[in-house]
């Protein structure tokens, strides 16, 4: 097949599938949360409530798209687009199966980190442009939180980079043929999981939204599809982080018997469910606790992990 056509098809699939899965995640999350809280969740619209997603989408598209008169209009409009763009850009480097990636860059991992660090702007600018106290507080919290968790997110991944010897994600997957990196890099995995939670603002770390204190934090003033874009962006982030955990620590597409893409999807789905379980189980920490954990526990641990990994790699080198 023509390589350009092939990469266009992959590009289309990479944009199309995560967007739809993200919408489906709304259903999955509500059903799973209900399961763990001894409820049923949405089960009326269609079989198992599957059409609930469709109903929600129709509803959100027909909501009034309201820009508050006191808001900073251009920034207010750009902010939700930024998160969609940055998260979707990150999908270009994810290796779904051997050869099935839009751009197999030699700095793939750094590209992912760069895009996730740009994602902060969406939240911060949304909070600022809304010109509301709650939104501003949410934006401030988001910038502080994501900045500090990004630091050791990058550092926690450097262990895998050391072991694989490359920033290219397909190389990292290939390097896990004999042993998943979760075994030598267990600490790195835990750190990345926590940092990923903080980056996607999922429940134990959803302080920028914090319904009980800040109404809805940075998106208090948003409505209609702009709000929907934040929502979809969050779910896209969850899928992305799950996919990255799969790629970096759990051997990506590798596994016996089944085709590679199935293994990838199964592993990713497992981590998505883990994310939802964390949301179901854990309460939100206080903001100063969050920051001091980040800087006083996570960062030293990440540095230690990097140091030990580096020493071991150096010692084991022939």
């Amino acid at each position, binding site marked *: 097949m023509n390589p350009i056509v092939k990469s266009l098809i992959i590009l289309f699939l990479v944009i199309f599938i995560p967007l739809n899965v993200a919408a489906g995640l709304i259903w999955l999350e509500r059903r799973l949360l209900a*399961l*763990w809280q*001894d*409820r*049923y969740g949405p089960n009326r619209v269609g079989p198992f409530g599957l059409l609930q997603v469709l109903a929600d989408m129709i509803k959100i598209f027909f909501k009034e798209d309201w820009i508050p008169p006191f808001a900073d209009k251009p920034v207010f409009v750009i902010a939700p687009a930024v998160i969609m763009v940055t998260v979707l850009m990150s999908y270009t480097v994810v290796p779904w199966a051997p050869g099935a990636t839009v751009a197999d860059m030699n700095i793939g991992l750094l590209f992912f980190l760069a895009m996730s660090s740009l994602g902060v702007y969406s939240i911060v600018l949304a909070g600022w442009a809304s010109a509301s106290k709650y939104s501003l507080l949410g934006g401030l919290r988001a910038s502080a939180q994501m900045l500090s968790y990004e630091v050791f997110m990058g550092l926690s991944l450097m262990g895998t980079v050391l072991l694989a010897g490359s920033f290219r994600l397909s190389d990292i997957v290939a390097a896990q043929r004999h042993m998943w990196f979760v075994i030598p890099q267990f600490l790195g995995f835990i750190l990345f999981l926590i940092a990923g939670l903080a980056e996607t603002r999922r429940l134990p770390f959803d302080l920028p939204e914090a319904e009980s204190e800040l109404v809805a934090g940075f998106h208090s003033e948003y409505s209609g599809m702009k709000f929907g874009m934040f929502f979809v962006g969050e779910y896209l982030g969850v899928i992305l982080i799950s996919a990255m955990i799969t790629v970096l620590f759990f051997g990506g597409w590798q596994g016996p018997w089944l085709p590679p893409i199935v293994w990838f999807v199964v592993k990713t789905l497992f981590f998505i469910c883990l994310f939802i*379980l964390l949301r179901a189980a*854990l309460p939100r920490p206080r903001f100063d606790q969050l920051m001091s954990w980040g800087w006083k526990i996570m960062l030293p641990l990440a540095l230690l992990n990097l140091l030990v990994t580096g020493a071991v790699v150096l010692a084991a080198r022939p």
Partner: protein
Amino acid sequence: MLSILRTLWNIFLHAFQRRETVQYPEEKPYLPPRHKGRIILTRDPDGGERCVACYLCAVACPVACISLQATEDETGRRYPEFFRINFSRCIFCGYCEEACPTYAIQLTPDFEMAEYHRQNLVYEKEDLLMSGPGKRPGYNFWRVSGVKIGGKDKGEAENEAPPVDLHSLLP
């Protein structure tokens, strides 16, 4: 750290427990007979209206959703000319039932009153009045009270002595 893992495990185990949800429209929950739901007006065992239009329910109502107008028939029996409850305001507190001296106004375990138009939530007397005595069978206010109405003179009520003729008490 360990407690977090234990929490996660415990929550995960909830996946295998019975779900508490009652699948409502197919599966009705049990409501006790004294549940405070839709308000009705009851009748005597004889079939007459119990309400004597004393306004106590309207006064007791904290959201002022009851309005009525008293009138009298030719026999001297009081009854409401109209009796209107605005259920879009009603909070189902049951104070009207407690205030009612004749057990006329009662709350029933029915709560499925949803309407598409708010105006339809205003119930008139015809909508409220039912044919039976409700929670108080056998009670008839006019038969135990000393008030004189058509067909019952003073002193003819239950447990009531005939009125004393003052003029006959002269020594």
